[in-house]
């Protein structure tokens, strides 16, 4: 194995919170487990009934408490167990992420993926990729400190 070029980040293990809807994505994560498709242990899953249960406040709270990346997974549009939940979630997350981007916060720290109960492979690939992206971004400083007293003198 080659030595990682990025020695600075070598030790850095990001903290990633994944919100997964009960019916598709949580089941997709279960399938990844059953199929022994690994992804980094930094990813911690929180089960919600539907992607439309994910309140932007949860995501900001996670960042406030030190998360380096937050990903939300739900059923593919059109497949929502509650028929329309993920459509609302899609709008909410699009606007929220756009706002975070507008504030200059790394938009790569947030992501939405649609993962079905049959897509264990996709779940694993997505988590690997997201963890890689967040690792490369390094520690989440901006979200932790948008306010900077020293500029206010």
């Amino acid at each position, binding site marked *: 194995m080659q030595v990682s070029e990025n020695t600075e980040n070598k030790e850095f293990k990001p903290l990633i919170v994944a919100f997964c809807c009960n019916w598709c994505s949580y089941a997709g994560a279960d399938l990844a487990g059953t199929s022994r498709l690994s992804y980094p242990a930094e990813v911690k899953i929180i089960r919600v009934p539907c992607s439309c249960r994910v309140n*932007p406040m949860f995501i900001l709270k996670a960042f406030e408490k030190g998360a380096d990346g937050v990903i939300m997974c739900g059923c593919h549009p059109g497949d929502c167990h509650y028929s329309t939940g993920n459509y609302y979630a899609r709008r909410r997350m699009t606007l*929220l992420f756009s706002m975070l981007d507008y504030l200059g916060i790394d*938009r790569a720290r947030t992501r939405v993926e649609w993962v079905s109960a049959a897509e264990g492979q996709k779940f694993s690939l997505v988590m690997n990729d997201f963890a890689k992206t967040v690792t490369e971004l390094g520690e989440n400083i901006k979200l932790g400190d948008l306010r900077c007293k020293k500029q206010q003198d």
Partner: protein
Amino acid sequence: MQKTAGLIKKRVLELLADGTVTKVLGWKEGDFIYDVTPASFLSAQEADGLVYSSFCGANLSKYLISECKALTEGKILALLKPCDTYSFNQLLTEHRIDRDKVYVIGVGCKGMLDIEKIKAMGIKGITKVIDNGKELDIKTIYGSKTCKREDALLEKCLCCKSKNFKAFDEIIDPEPETKEEKADRFAKVSELEAMTAEERYAFWQEQLSKCIRCNACRNVCPACSCMKCVFDNPVSGVSSKANTDSFEEKMFHIIRAFHVAGRCTDCGECSRVCPQNIPLHLLNRKFIKDINELYGEYQAGEEVGSRAPLADFTFDDAEPSVVNERGNS
């Protein structure tokens, strides 16, 4: 302006006298002529203090929530400028006020003045402002000064939504729709969007660090009218009343903007009242711009009962990744 004020006062007195209304929501002058604040008047005598001047920027619609609740008989008269009627409609859509309890007089508006802008021109000790529509003749204790009217307009008036009233029972002195090109209300948002992430971050870091959590923005906002705000609610998990943690203002302002997204009429009151001059309306306008671009033009309060974009969807809405695709870093 004085003519309009006269007409308004005359009509208000008539409506009070014939019992059509039992209370009037308007503006009164404070210690200085530009120090105009919202006020309510219960009698003809009180209504003597009613003013309508170029400093009546304040949007009175939000007060109707509590006034409607408190009202026991008759109607409450509200003086609404064209842009205020959007907020009024939005509150009707959300069932926060009772249309039957309100008598709306739409009052014509040429655009309201921003005293901060006038002061910033170095004009102090103002005693009187004569507004001839194009220029302001400002009497001060140091003598007369003039300035161009458009240089002293409130931000919201520079890109006036409309001179038409979206709700009214009667109209006094309406203004014709302006022919001139209005300022692009998204100009600053676009400018920020064109910056690099680092520049944007620096901009907001500077702006939001000024926040003192006085809650003026929240208290004035017609869309921020919750019985109990999540930030005041200990069980919400995000309650925070003071700036104890660096992240909290950011969370507060993002969540506040998010909660009013699709409901904000872009009345600009948040920025007008901010004692720290944080351009909070730029957060709201970002949401409005995104909504318009992604989900089609939408103006909250344009019509009563319209479905807010966040309570709506289409099957082929943009994916959240659109943020990555169109942004620059």
